[in-house]
C-alpha cells in the first residue's frame, strides 16, 4: 500500500473571535484558524466541530467563502453544542473540514435563486445568499422565504436588517407559525408563502433547507407551482459523525450524506423513501 495520508480525524485549531446570541437556544460564532489559513469552503458545506474531552459534531458553515474567517450558528441541543454554548470569545475549538457537496454555485450562475429556509435551515442558506450578494452580477433574482415557529426564533444575523430593508436586493418574505403581540407579518407555515410568488420557472431554482418535516410540504407546494424536479436542491440533515464517508451513520441508501450531500439535487433522492 502506497503512501499513507495523515489522520482523517485530527482537527485544526481555531479561535472563536466573536459570539453573538441569536435566540434562546442558538448562538452565532465567528471563527478563524490559528495558523491564519482560510477554510476554503463552498456554500452549503459543513465542518466537524471538536471540543476535546466532550466530542465532535457536524455544523453547517453559515458564512460566504467571500468573507474572511468563517461563521457557525449553533443550536444547544446535544452534549457538544451545550459545551460550545459555554465558550467565550478567545476560546479554542478544533475544526475538521469543510466536508461534503455544497450548493451548485457555479452551475446556478445567471439563474434566479429561490431560497426556502425553515428554522435553523436558514444557517447554511445564509452562506449562499451572502455569496450571491457578493457576486451579484453572476445571479438573477435573490428571493428568500424564511419561516420559524415564533418571531423570537427568527435569527438576527448581522446583515438581516439590511435584507429586511431591501438594501441588498434580497426579496425577503417572512412567516411564523404563531405570531405574538408585536408581530405584524405573515402567520402560517412557510408553504403559504409559495403560491403568491411570481417566478420565471425556466430560470428559477429552489434551494431548500429546513427541519425534516418541512421538505414534504415544500416539495408539494413547489409541485403545485409547476416547478421542475431538476430545479430543486435540498440540504439534508443526518448524523454525519465522521464527515469522511466511513462511519455509516449518515447513509441514505447508497449515498453518504457527508460526502454525496448534504446538498442533493432533488431527482437523485426523489424515489428514496427514507431520504425525505
Amino acid at each position: 500500500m502506497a503512501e499513507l495520508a495523515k489522520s482523517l480525524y485530527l482537527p485544526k485549531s481555531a479561535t472563536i473571535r466573536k459570539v453573538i446570541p441569536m435566540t434562546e437556544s442558538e448562538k452565532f460564532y465567528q471563527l478563524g484558524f490559528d495558523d491564519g489559513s482560510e477554510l476554503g469552503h463552498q456554500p452549503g458545506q459543513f465542518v466537524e466541530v471538536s471540543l476535546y474531552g466532550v466530542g465532535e459534531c457536524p455544523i453547517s458553515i453559515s458564512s460566504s467563502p467571500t468573507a474572511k474567517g468563517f461563521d457557525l450558528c449553533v443550536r444547544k441541543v446535544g452534549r457538544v453544542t451545550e459545551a460550545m454554548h459555554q465558550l467565550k470569545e478567545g476560546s479554542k475549538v478544533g475544526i475538521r473540514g469543510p466536508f461534503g457537496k455544497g450548493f451548485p454555485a457555479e452551475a446556478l450562475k445567471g439563474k434566479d435563486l429561490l431560497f426556502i429556509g425553515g428554522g435553523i435551515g436558514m444557517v447554511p442558506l445564509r452562506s449562499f445568499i451572502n455569496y450571491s450578494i457578493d457576486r451579484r452580477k453572476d445571479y438573477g433574482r435573490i428571493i428568500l422565504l424564511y419561516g420559524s415557529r415564533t418571531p423570537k426564533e427568527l435569527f438576527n444575523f448581522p446583515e438581516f436588517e439590511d435584507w429586511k430593508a431591501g438594501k441588498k436586493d434580497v426579496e425577503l418574505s417572512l412567516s411564523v407559525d404563531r405570531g405574538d403581540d408585536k408581530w405584524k407579518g405573515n402567520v402560517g407555515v412557510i408553504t403559504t408563502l409559495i403560491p403568491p410568488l411570481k417566478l420565471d420557472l425556466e430560470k428559477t431554482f429552489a434551494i431548500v433547507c429546513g427541519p425534516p418535516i418541512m421538505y414534504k410540504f415544500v416539495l408539494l407546494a413547489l409541485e403545485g407551482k409547476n416547478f421542475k424536479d431538476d430545479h430543486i436542491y435540498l440540504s439534508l440533515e443526518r448524523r454525519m459523525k465522521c464527515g469522511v464517508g466511513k462511519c455509516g451513520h449518515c447513509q441514505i441508501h447508497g449515498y453518504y450524506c457527508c460526502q454525496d450531500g448534504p446538498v442533493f439535487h432533488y431527482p437523485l433522492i426523489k424515489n428514496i423513501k427514507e431520504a425525505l
Partner: protein
Amino acid sequence: MKKGVIGKKDFNSWVETLKKEGEVFGPKERTDQCWFFDRVNNPAELRLDYTSTILPPKKFFVPPRNELLLEFNLKSGEGKAGKAAPDRELILLGIHGCDMQGLLRLDLCWKEGNPDSTYLAKRAKSTVIGVSCNPDEYCFCTKVESNDFRQGFDIFLSDIGQSWLAEAFTEKGEKLLALAKTTEGTLLDDEIAYKAKARCATTKGPEFLPKVVELPLLCIDGEDLPFWKEDVGQRCLACGTCTNVCPTCYCFDVEEEVDLNLTTGRRLRRWDSCQLEGFTEVAGGEKFMRDQPGRQKHRFYRKFRWLTTKYGGSAFCVGCGRCGRQCTAEISIPETANKLFLGVKAKG
C-alpha cells in the same frame, strides 16, 4: 510463486520461527467447536482444522473498541493523531478464503475517497497466511463467489494429509516460506490440495437461489416486498450481533475518554451497528431509519446493492455464515436472499 511441502511434524517449529518475524495470531478453540483468533503462544494451540471463528479477522485492523484515533491535552488544547502502525509485523496464520475476501472488501472501503490511515497502516504491516477450510452447513462462500485461495494471501496452506502444501504469492510470503523445512511437491500433491480447497464447494451448505450478479437488481425490484416487514423485520431483535460478526461491516462510533487527572485524554473508535435503534438519531431526536424492517433491509442492501454497485460488482457478503450461526432469531443471509428472489419472481 514459490511452493513447498511442509511436513506436519515440522510445522510447529516453522510457527516458532514465524514468531521471531512478527506477532503471530491464529485460530484456537475456546470450548468445544467454539473458535477464536488469538495470539499464538504455543503452536500446539493452533486449530487449523477450525470451521469459523466468532469474530472475523477485521478485529485486528478495526478493533471492537478502544482504538486510539487522537490523544489530547485539555490544558494546552493540543491534540495529536494516535500512532497507527504497530511496531512489529502482524502475521495472521490460518485465514479462510472468505475472511480474506472480507479483508479485501474492507481495504476497498477504507481506501476509497478519504483513505483512513489508521486502518491502512495496520493492513500494510500485516502478513496473511491462508488455510484450506473445513466448512459447515452455514457456509456459503461459493454461492457469493468468495472462494478464492490466492487473492490477498501471502501464503496459502492446503491440508494434504501428513503435510501442508504451501504456496507463497508475495515477496513477504516467499521470505517466510523460506524459513520452513520444505520438500518439493508433486502433481498429486497439487490435486489433493485442490480437493481440500474445494471442500467449500463440495460440502452441502444452505440453499441460495439468486446469482450474485442479479442480486442488486432483485434488491431494486424487491424493495416493497411484504416479507421485509412481516417476516425478517418482525423477527429481528435489533441486537446488532450480525454486524459485529460480519467480516465486511465496519460502521463505527467515536467516544471521548478523559483521564482522572482531568487533563489528558483520548478519542477512541468503537464498532457501531446499523441494527441498533439509535444508529441514525440526530441531536434533535429525529431517527432516519425508523423501524427494524428498514434496518434489516439496510444491512442486506449494503451487502448486495449499494456497495456492490459502487465497487464494481462483488457482493459485500463473503458467505462466511457467521451472522446466520449467531442470530438468535435465526435470520440468515441465504434465507433473506431466497425470500427476496422468490418474492420478486412471484411478482413477475
